[in-house]
């Protein structure tokens, strides 16, 4: 057909673009993709090869059994050490203490579990942080509440405070 040169050219361009996409797509698909599903199967082996960073409570027990027993006797019995402390691998190397253990003491960390949420069971102690701090007599409740303020009344290994009055007002958030 005459006068169709431009159509041929654009047609070839489209074919080149589509072929190019198909070609590059083949190059871009990871080799192990799709062996067991829509994911890169090699990734499973890669994940398995990663050294575990956490040691679970057994890792702590060997040196800190008193602290672990103390924790087990209180309401935080189901909270793993490494939830607030750093992973074991940042503290121990080849079964020997290598570095100091760090710990997250911020109120922000505490309210990850103890912030009042409508969906949490009523039996679980929950607070509205500001309201709670006002109730227990903290005068200035500003941005600083998230520092180590919770630790002033609660010892995290055995968090029930000694002062019964504080306890009563402290868990008032449950009433909601």
């Amino acid at each position, binding site marked *: 057909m*005459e*006068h*169709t*040169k*431009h*159509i041929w*050219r*654009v047609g070839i*361009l*489209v074919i080149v*673009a589509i072929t190019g996409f198909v070609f590059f*797509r083949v190059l*871009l*698909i990871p080799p192990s*993709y*799709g062996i067991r599903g*829509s994911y890169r199967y090699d990734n499973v082996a890669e994940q398995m090869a990663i050294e575990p960073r956490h040691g679970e409570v057994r890792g702590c027990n060997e040196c800190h059994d008193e602290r672990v027993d103390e924790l087990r006797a209180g309401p935080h019995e189901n909270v793993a050490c490494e939830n607030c402390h750093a992973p074991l691998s940042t503290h121990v190397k080849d079964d020997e203490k290598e570095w100091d253990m760090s710990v997250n003491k911020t109120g*922000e960390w505490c*309210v990850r579990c103890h*912030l*009042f*949420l*409508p*969906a*949490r069971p009523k039996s679980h102690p929950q607070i*509205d*942080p*500001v309201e709670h701090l006002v109730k227990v007599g903290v005068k200035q409740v500003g*941005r600083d*509440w*998230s520092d180590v303020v919770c630790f002033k009344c609660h010892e995290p290994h055995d968090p029930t405070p000694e002062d019964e009055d504080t306890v009563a007002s402290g868990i008032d958030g449950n009433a909601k």
Partner: protein
Amino acid sequence: MPILVPEHTGFLFPNDLHVSWSLMIVMYPYITGLVAGAFIVSSLYHVFGSERFAPVGRLSLGASFCFLIFATAPLLNHLGHPERAFNIMITPNFRSAMAGFGILYNTYMLILALEIWFVWRQDIILIARHSRGIKRQFYKLLALGVYDISAEALAHDRKATRILASIGIPAACALHGYVGFLFGALKSNPWWSTPLMPIVFLFSAVVSGIAALIIMYMISMKITGRSISDECVDGLSKMLWAFLIVTLTLEILEIVTLAYEAAEEWQIISSLLFSKLSLEYVGLQMMMGGFVPLILLAIIVLMSPTPPIRNTLALISSLLLLVQVFAMRWNVVIGGQLFSKSLRGFRDGYQPSFFEREGVLAAVLILLAPFAATLVFARVLPLFDYIDKQAQTRRPGPGEQQVPLTSE
């Protein structure tokens, strides 16, 4: 420390507290919808030969293309890892509703780009012939090096345009219906999960597209000092009215069905629409954005007012309809996340802040981007009568046959 618990009433699950699909997910169907609407108008001219739409034939294609380029921008801005977006094209997992998006989007983009090329080919060649240096090389490249604008070649172009536009109509419908499907196929949410959703999305998309086109057409005529084509605005208004009737009917039918069935979800949906979203739904989507333009457009269609009044009414209706469709997207996307999956509680509203990544400013910029792109587009490929002007100034070269220089 900001307040950590969002305001709420009733019973919510923990994961109901957050509106994860932000303002950006409202923008996504909105901009995609403008594509579909503008394209339908261009098809009426290119496929069905409605001469009254000739003045917006090119504008609608150009605008559609520019909207399409930015249709994914809100999604990419929403993603934490936008570079991973390409994975749905490289390794699509068809168990995910989103997997088809890459295929539909790119197919439609290809059809639209080809159609634009065929429609503007004659202009490209004429510009190439009348320019020098880099500009000439650029247009020569755009013309793929073929300068054939003989009557036969142009006839082939018209045929190709018609074929592409007719493939483009189902492609545009599929692209936008698909966006509705993304919501309609989410069975966990009773406000979204309805087979009607793709159709409602599609029709409101066409409404917003035509409305945007009317506004863009009037503004560009005003800026360039051209006169507004009465026939064109009249035709667009009539079409807008027709599509608006269908859209409103579908939107109301959906609610009427839900209300009459009065299944367990109706209690929460009714309080969502009529108390939580009373301004957005009843006020903006139904009254101000729905019924007011319906009446204004009815005046145009039934009473044939004088051109200045008709143009003003069409412009006001179009602006209101852009708000209506935006409100509809907002009420679907955000509304669907305001109530708990327990159907027993509400999160207390969602207000995007101005400067945040997915905030109001980002949304405004993303919405303005396609309009700016259309301006750039118009600089490269003239949206209006380039050929007519050339016809007045250009003489045929030696050995060159004078060809009828009609548009397309």
